[in-house]
């Protein structure tokens, strides 16, 4: 059997794990426990089946992207693997960047070719001058194809990307990387309630998740919580955006939390979970925004009985601070 990685083929012995085979050939993958607990050795299958054991305990969204654990993979056929997150770039142009509230722009971008992504994923955006930042995609793939890829960007006046976008002309050349992130909606994956909590522009990917859930006629309740430091940070308003209430039969609720008014989004999320009054194991939570608030919400939901495996989180770390 053959294992292909970065264009090179390696032999794979029967019963040998992908991790061991690569190590034998001098290709060291990150690894720690080697028994499937730590998930440090997660890689992606481009073609071939790594076998069912290799997917044990992985989130559904990772499985959909072809991820598996190299330590548990004992394939019985040829396999081509890649490191998580290979970068492929797509040229694009700026359609428009208009204010949607104080300090937040709705940015529309037209890629040269169709971008393949799951609702809720994020993408790297590069501008002339070699500046690259990560933004979450708000539009569903079908909407992106029609009106362009929609991003919500908080403007830092001195920000190398956001400040530039605020001044950029329509038509400006851009480039997009390959979409990534585990905070995305999978059609038909589960019928249970979705708890979506985001701070600042962290609500952007959650809008995509909510839109996808509605498009999929998700049977469970969809609870959105938007948190902001100050009242004017609620750039989508205090009421549920009409597009989310328009579809009949959907159960969407919208709640806002303003830190300066003493409203704690972690406590609000736990209260919404309790109000759903269903087994914590049937709920899936998606959290996005600053690392501090995402961490606190995650902990509150964990303490309220949710398993970490059911909590999908994306942290908007600042450029340069990781990623």
């Amino acid at each position: 059997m053959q294992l292909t990685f970065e264009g090179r083929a390696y032999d794979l012995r029967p019963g040998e794990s992908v991790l061991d085979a690569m190590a034998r050939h001098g290709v060291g993958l990150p690894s720690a426990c080697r028994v499937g607990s730590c998930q440090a050795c997660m890689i992606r299958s481009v073609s071939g089946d790594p076998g069912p054991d290799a997917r044990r305990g992985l989130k559904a969204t990772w499985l959909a992207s072809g991820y598996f654990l190299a330590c548990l993979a004992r394939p019985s056929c040829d396999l081509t693997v890649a490191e998580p997150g290979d970068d492929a770039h797509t040229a694009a142009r700026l359609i428009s960047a208009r204010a949607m509230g104080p300090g937040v722009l709705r940015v529309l971008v037209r890629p040269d070719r169709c971008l393949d992504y799951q609702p809720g994923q994020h993408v790297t955006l590069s501008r002339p001058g070699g500046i690259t930042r990560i933004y979450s995609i708000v539009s569903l793939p079908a909407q992106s194809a029609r009106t362009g890829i929609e991003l919500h960007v908080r403007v830092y006046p001195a920000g190398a990307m956001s400040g530039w976008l605020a001044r950029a002309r329509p038509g400006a050349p851009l480039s997009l990387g390959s979409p990534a992130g585990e905070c995305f909606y999978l059609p038909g994956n589960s019928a249970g309630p979705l708890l979506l909590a985001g701070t600042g522009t962290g609500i952007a990917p959650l809008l995509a998740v909510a839109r996808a859930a509605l498009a999929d006629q998700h049977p469970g309740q969809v609870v959105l919580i938007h948190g902001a430091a100050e009242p004017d940070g609620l750039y989508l308003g205090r009421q549920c955006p009409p597009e989310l209430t328009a579809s009949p039969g959907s159960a969407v609720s919208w709640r806002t939390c303003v830190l300066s008014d003493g409203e704690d989004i972690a406590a609000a999320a736990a209260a919404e979970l309790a109000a759903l009054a269903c087994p914590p194991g049937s709920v899936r939570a998606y959290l996005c925004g600053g690392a501090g608030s995402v961490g606190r919400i995650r902990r509150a939901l964990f303490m309220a009985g949710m398993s970490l495996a059911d909590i999908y989180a994306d942290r908007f770390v600042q450029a340069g601070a990781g990623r």
Partner: protein
Amino acid sequence: MTAETSVYERLGGSLAIRSVTEVFYRKVLSDDLLAPYFDDVDMDRQIAKQASFLTMALGGPNEYTGDDLRSAHAGMPDLDDKHFDGVLGHLADTLRAFGVSEADVSEVGAVADSVRNDVLNR
């Protein structure tokens, strides 16, 4: 129980270990005596490490490669027996909640107790 099957196997392998670990960790974080020690610690890292530890204590397959327990706890010189007993108590309660027999609970407790001096750095 005899050594034929380990507690780990009776709990159903590593997937059950993950939920056991979460319940255990939730108890630790709810304990005012212990919680402050875990304030700044990354939950995922902790859960992964505790899962490896539990796997080991329950007699499952383990190739634990973390720092040794002594150095892992060396930064907490004020840890003493009441913290340690607290952790052991939560471990036992957790196992009982998963229907583990008293014989197995004490077997696991004894394994965990054998590292007391390392954890408490003495």
